[in-house]
């Protein structure tokens, strides 16, 4: 049973709903970051929604994924709760990581979401490990790793693909080629036209697909999942897409023109295109779409409201969760700080 059955009208609507959720969630996160509400870094997924939703839609719900620093889209596509995600962005205890992780580390292992990841290129080896566990236990799952166009320059990605190819591990690698790694265009990071050519180095199937088309992504990943599940090993899929926003909120984007950005938005917007497709097929009306948008907008606003009100973690919680049992060192330091009067912070 796939996560989102895009062969059915209801599934397609659900796909659209998740794409829209990602868009509105990140538009809101962006605003709240600019307000100074959300600390740290926020890397919006806006523009790339078709990749996360198409890819994760084609997985079974208990399949594993690993994500990247730009992970909100993957989380929401995997079905994570916007409320607990927003709470995490706000650094609140109710967040998925009790506020310890923040935007770049949201994880929900029970949902098969093995974490957003602040280290470019780190996800594919982890997903390969998950695939190893699956194969070891002969479980009926697969693992899927997202990786950026910048990320595939990392050697550890290649090590992972080679291992998976050699051992026919049940894993799918999805390269989100959004044309840039921070401010550096893909042509300045790679010599190949299509990053799916990487597959040749490991004699595994490789495909370059239109990452603005959720159906195309869904179909490619569905096939790859079947291959993985059948014991035929990994597949590498490059989804060409585009990030509408800067690398992170606050990026001045001096490395590209407004025309370039607007061109992609006008011609290829994944939500607009898919919505139109559903409307053309009479599966959706414009009114329904607007209603959907409002529902989601309300839910996201409520998530923000909730996150704002939610309690912050107590300072003492900082000493927890380092190990399965507390290490004596950490207990010692915590006790010392308490003895000093509990004053660790500073008014700098």
């Amino acid at each position: 049973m796939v996560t989102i059955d895009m062969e059915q009208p209801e599934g397609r609507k659900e796909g659209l709903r998740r794409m829209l959720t990602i868009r509105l969630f990140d538009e809101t996160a962006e605003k709240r970051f600019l307000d100074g509400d959300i600390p740290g870094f926020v890397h919006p997924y806006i523009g790339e929604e078709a990749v996360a939703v198409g890819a994760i839609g084609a997985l079974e719900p208990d399949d594993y994924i690993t994500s990247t620093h730009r992970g909100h889209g993957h989380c929401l596509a995997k079905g994570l709760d916007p409320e607990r995600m927003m709470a995490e962005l706000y650094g609140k205890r109710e967040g998925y990581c009790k506020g310890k992780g923040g935007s770049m580390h949201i994880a929900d292992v029970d949902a098969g979401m093995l974490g957003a990841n602040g280290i470019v290129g780190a996800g594919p080896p982890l997903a390969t490990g998950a695939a190893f566990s699956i194969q070891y236990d002969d479980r009926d799952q697969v693992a899927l790793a997202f990786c950026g166009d910048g990320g595939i320059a990392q050697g550890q990605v290649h090590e992972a693909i080679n291992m998976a190819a050699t051992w026919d591990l049940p894993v799918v690698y999805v390269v989100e080629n959004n044309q840039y790694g921070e401010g550096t265009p893909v042509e300045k990071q790679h010599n190949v036209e299509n990053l799916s050519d990487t597959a040749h180095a490991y004699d595994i199937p490789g495909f370059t697909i239109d990452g603005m088309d959720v159906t195309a992504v869904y179909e490619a990943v569905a096939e790859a999942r079947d291959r993985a599940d059948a014991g035929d090993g990994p597949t590498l899929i490059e989804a060409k897409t585009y990030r509408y926003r800067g690398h992170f909120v606050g990026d001045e984007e001096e490395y590209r023109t407004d025309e370039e950005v607007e061109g992609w938005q006008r011609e290829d917007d994944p939500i607009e295109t898919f919505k139109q497709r559903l409307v053309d097929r009479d599966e959706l009306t414009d009114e329904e779409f607007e209603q959907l948008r409002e529902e989601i907008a309300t839910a996201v606003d409520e998530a923000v409201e909730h996150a704002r009100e939610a309690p912050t973690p107590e300072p003492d919680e900082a000493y927890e969760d380092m190990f399965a049992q507390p290490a004596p060192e950490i207990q010692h330091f915590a006790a010392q700080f308490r003895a000093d009067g509990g004053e660790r912070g500073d008014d700098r």
Partner: protein
Amino acid sequence: MTAHAELETEATDRMTVREAINQALREELERDEDVFVMGEDVGVMGGVLGVTDGLLEEFGEKRIVDSPISEAGLAGLGTGAAATGTRPVIEIMFSDFLGVAAEQIINQMAKMRYMFGGKIEMPVTVRTTEGGGMGAASQHSGTIHTWIAHFPGLKAVAPGTPAAAKGLLKSSIRSNDPVFFFENKMIYEDSGEVPVDEEFTIPIGEASVERAGDDVTVVATQRLVGESLDVADDLEGDVDVEVIDLRSLYPLDTDTIVSSLEKTGRLVVADESPLSYGTHAEIATRAMEEGFFSLDAPVQRVGTPDTHIPFSPPLEEEVLPSGADVENAINRIV
């Protein structure tokens, strides 16, 4: 060695460190289906230094996995596998190669539990061999355990005897935290008595007084445990030396060290790491913090003099810390 009330038998067998490690692996593979051993040439070759000999024959290719030469991949695969229900024992052939794997170790394996708010287990063990003495030159002779002991979220053990090797490796594998198990390559042939009971384990974080003495405490690791015991024997009658096998680097058993210091008033720390910012400094500092008024003399450090390990035997012998250095250090303060 720690007595475990629950052991069915107190019997011991004489074996080498290599055999003790091999036996620990074998027992844990037998005990828990989730345990697998993966590394470069751990299978068909039985490990480049023979430590995993025979495991492939006994447990088969599923559980004893020869991997491509990809240490970052190994550490990442081990981390991802540990997070998803198996219990990997990864071999990084020489500790110098931990550099290749360092990203996955420090940013994933060490941090995942904390970053995820505690909502994951990380039952992975990393075995690796370290130290000079084989003429293996600078890239195969380093002692790098201070890096791991320093890095938050990782546990590190470094046994000095066969019994410690077996008991600690079993605890490492059973632990739900990432534990690095550092084997010194020069003691693989050292032998000693090792409990045979399959439930024999040594808690991570406990040091062991291997020899009691009143005049000076030597806290030693790995090869230098045995060499310090020899020095203690040699000095018998002149100086009464207490020798502690530190066994665990992190968590560190401050209590055992400080209790000994309170008795002897003098401390020598002997560990093969490079001296500056090395393992020694932490032990010296804790001794000072917790035993300031017991210290009758500055703590003495015995280690590698901030050089790499050179190839040529007279050079290698010069830089490697040895029993003679422990003796000199004792003589400086008694």
